[in-house]
Every structure is written in C-alpha cells, then in structure tokens.
C-alpha cells in the first residue's frame, strides 16, 4: 500500500512538474536553451490550445495526489515508520521546481520586492504599473495595485530577491524555495510538539499544501510558521521566550493580517494547548469563511486552518481531519472549470462554487447520518 501511495504521489508530482510549464505566460521567457524552449512551446500549445484536455490532466493529477495522500494517512499506523520518510524530500523538490501554474502571486511577490530593493521606491505608494519600462509588467497580474502584503513579508523577501536577482527564472525558484523553508519549519514544529509523524504528514503531504505552498509559492506557510512559532514560544515559562513569541506573532500578523484572529490564544493563557489548537482551527476557519467579504475564497487560505488541524491528535473518525480533507478536495477541484474554459466569467464561477462546496457538504451529511445511526444503535442497546 505504501509503495502504491508513493507511486501515486511522486508520479503525479512528476507529471505536474512537466505539465505546469504549459501554464507559462506567452510573454515570459524562462529558458534560452533551444530544446527546452521547444518543449515549453509544445506544452503551452497543449494547455492553451486544448483547455479541456488540460483540465482532464489536472483532474487526474489532483485525484492521484489525494488518493496517495488518503492511502498514506489510512495505512500509516499499520506500517509504523519510526523515522521521517525520506522520499518526501524528493516530493518537495519536484514541487519546488514546478512552474507556479495555478497562480501568478509569486510574480507579484517578486515585483514588489523589486520595487523596494531594486527601484528603492516605497511599494505602498508607487505601483509597478507606474514604471512602464519594467519588463515584468508583461506577465505580472495586479500590477496596478500597491503592495498587497505587510511590511514583515516585504522585509523577508529581501533574501529570495537577492538570491534570485540574476533572472526571473532564478527569482521564481528562489521565492518558492524560501516558502519551502517555512513549510519545512512548520512540519518540524508539528512533529516536535506532537511527537507523531502522522500528524506532521497530515500537513506535509496534503495536496493542497503541496500545490498552493510549494508549487504556487504562496506566502501563507510563512505567515503560519511565524504564528505557530510565536504560539509555541508563548507557551514556554521563560520571559525571553514569551517576548520572542510575541515578536514572531507580530511578524506573522504583518505578513498578511489574517493571524490577528489568533490573538485570543495569547490572551487566555490559562487555556491548555489542546484547547488552543482546536480554537485556533475554528478561528482560522472562521476568517477563511469571511475572506470572500474582502475578495474571494482562495484555496491557499486553507493553509491557515490546516496548520492547526495538523496539531489536533488524529483519531479514528476524527471530524476535523476528515472534514479538512473534504474541503481540500473541493478547493483543488475548483480550478477545473478555469483550466477548462480559461475564463473567470461566464459559467466558470458557478461550476467552481459547485465543485468546491459539494465534497465538504457530502462529508457533513455522511458524518451526521453516521452519527445519528450510531446514536440510535446505542439507545437500542441500552434499552
């Protein structure tokens, strides 16, 4: 079973690594080596020219990833590995070296960093579009906005920006590798606190985390790593650790702002760790549900509550974990209509909403049906 799951996951990510380059913007030149350029032309012609077939490939990749993930999580206890499964490292590498197919946010991060560190302009005042001779404008979305993220994120991006300043290709991979560092930090913190690899793998192998954090390079793992590190340090007895915890939590809030919802976990110091993580899960889930008020329900926002779900002890029929799984399936399927139609309007939003909502709703119905049947049986037995 474990071998099968490995084949599912590594195979799917290998296909994704190649397939993802087909989503490259036609104005973006990643490589100059002619055979690679030729291969990318074929891939982009497939993705843009055969959108329905591309959506089938994407659907197959997501299905394989979720199947592999489900098998690993279901069979984990049977195989009982004591050490960290090293094949996950190759999985991370495949994801990092994929093209950010599903989102253009990484280009936005790079351009904001360029505005700050190369042009030396305040990114909260000058928009990238106001410098018309900037070459990245040809393929960067949301260039008509000032910086969308907080100052601690902009300060942190100085590291990947310096590493990848030679070319756009280097910048894309340095930004993704930078996010991957925080992803690894989160996996480590989950294991360190829970002392269970299945808990860490619940986060590390989740297809949504892999696709949105490692492939698309969203900064949510950075925000969550800072918040969780802050919370763990806040739990220590020493004042120095507590101060460091507050500093890290503040830095997290200044990445995107969503983690401000975790403030009660710092205020109510009498709460146990177990109570805090369950509250953390539902608080971040609440913010996730409220996010459409600002823009829309983006799949990568699921990182916020998945982080806390990974700290909640995994038990048989655990609602939080199974529900999180169903929501993740729905969110990742939500990309299908966009890939198939290459349109944000028309019927795309309606199908997207349906695909996103159906899996969690089906799970909730199944859960309650199961719950009421069990309760009936219990009362029958007692009678």
């Amino acid at each position: 079973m474990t071998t099968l799951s490995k084949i599912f996951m590594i195979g799917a990510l290998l296909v994704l690594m190649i397939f993802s380059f087909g989503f490259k913007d036609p104005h973006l030149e990643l490589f100059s080596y002619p055979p690679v350029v030729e291969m990318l032309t074929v891939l982009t012609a497939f993705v843009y020219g055969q959108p329905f077939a591309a959506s089938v490939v994407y659907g197959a990749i997501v299905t394989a990833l979720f199947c592999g993930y489900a098998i690993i999580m279901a069979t984990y206890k049977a195989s009982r590995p004591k050490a960290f499964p090293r094949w996950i490292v190759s999985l991370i590498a495949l994801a990092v070296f994929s093209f950010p197919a599903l989102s253009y946010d990484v280009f936005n991060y790079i351009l904001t960093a360029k505005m700050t560190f190369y042009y030396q302009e305040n990114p909260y005042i000058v928009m990238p579009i106001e410098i018309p001779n900037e070459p990245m404008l040809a393929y960067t979305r949301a260039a008509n906005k000032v910086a969308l993220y907080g100052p601690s994120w902009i300060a942190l991006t100085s590291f990947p920006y310096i590493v990848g300043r030679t070319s756009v290709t280097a910048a894309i991979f340095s930004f993704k590798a930078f996010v991957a560092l925080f992803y690894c930090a989160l996996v480590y913190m989950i294991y360190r606190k829970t002392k269970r690899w299945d808990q860490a793998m619940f986060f590390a192998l989740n297809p949504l985390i892999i696709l949105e954090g490692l492939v698309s390079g969203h900064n949510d793992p950075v925000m969550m790593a800072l918040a969780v590190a802050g919370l763990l340090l806040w739990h220590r007895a020493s004042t120095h650790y507590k101060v460091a915890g507050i500093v890290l939590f503040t830095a997290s809030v200044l990445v995107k702002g969503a983690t401000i919802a975790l403030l009660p976990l710092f205020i109510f110091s009498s709460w146990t760790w177990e109570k805090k993580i369950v509250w953390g899960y539902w608080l971040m889930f609440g913010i996730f549900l409220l996010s459409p008020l600002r823009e829309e329900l983006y799949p990568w926002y699921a990182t916020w509550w998945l982080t806390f779900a990974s700290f909640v002890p995994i038990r048989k029929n655990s609602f939080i974990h199974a529900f999180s799984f169903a929501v993740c399936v729905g969110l990742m399927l939500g990309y299908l209509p966009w890939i198939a139609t290459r349109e944000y309007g028309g019927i795309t939003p309606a199908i997207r909403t349906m695909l996103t909502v159906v899996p969690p709703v089906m799970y909730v119905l199944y859960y309650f049906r199961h719950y009421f049947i069990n309760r009936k049986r219990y009362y029958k037995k007692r009678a």
Partner: protein
Amino acid sequence: MKRFFVGVIISVLYCFSMLPTVRADYVLPYPGFMPGNKLYKVSRFLDKAKEPLYFGPLSAYKYHLGLADKYLVEAKVLFEYKQYLLAVDALARSDKEFTMLPRYLVQAGKQRKDVSLFEQQLSEAALMHKQILEELLVQLPDTFTWTPEKSAATLLPLKDLLQSSVTIRSNVL
C-alpha cells in the same frame, strides 16, 4: 436656403466643439483642516512626519505633489474668505513644494525609470494650478495692506505673488 445656412453653422460649431481643447482633468484634493482649527497644527505636523515614508524619487514626487495641491486649495479658500496673510503663506508653501517636483522626476529618470506618466501628470497638475491662480488674479486686488489690531501693517503684493506662482507652474508646461 436659410435652413441650409443654419445647418452649416450648427455643423461647424459641432465640429469645433469636438476638437481637443486644452483642459485639465486633474482633481485637486480636499484641503483638510484650515488655519484656526485646533487640529490644523497636528495636520501640518503629520504632513512633515510622513515625509520619511515617501522614500524613493517617485514616492517623494507623489508626496510633494500632494502637498503642493493641498496648500494651493488651502490658499484658494483663504483668499476667498479674504484671509490674505494666511493665504499668502499657504501659497508660498504650495510654490515651494511645486518647485521640487521636476527635480524628483529627473532623479527617477537617471535611475532608468520611465517617468512619462508622471511628466504627463505634472503637466496636468500645472495646468490646473494655473487655472486656479489665474481665476484668483482676476478676483483679487493688486495689493492689499493687512493691518492687524496690535502690530504693524503688512503690504501684500497679491498680483505679483500670484503672477510668480503662475510662472512657476508655467515653467513645467
């Protein structure tokens, strides 16, 4: 025949109305707190305090243009309310901010930033400023002697001051 001539005249007038005319689409800001308000000094302090946040030549350009606009509107309102001494001070501040603008654009250009959009904006701003100043030139007396209750009188050469402000704006057009 009469109808024909009327038709020709209307058509010619319509064609002329369609020709592009020099007009500024530039929108000036609300001036905020005015002198006499308790928060006026706070507002002035905040204007100064914000300056370090506008690092980079394009950011600095935006900062100084914002202040040039704000102080010009402040001067206009004060002139309209015949508070000439305060108005002259606000106008001097607006002039000072406006004269700094081309320097920042030159600096940005030297950093290989395409400043064409900002140059266009500066021309529009100059045009709008000029329009307001020229209106004031018509409305206001050439000179005015400001006589406070407890101190010496001050002669304000309003026409010369406004003319000088117009020249500052004209230089960037």
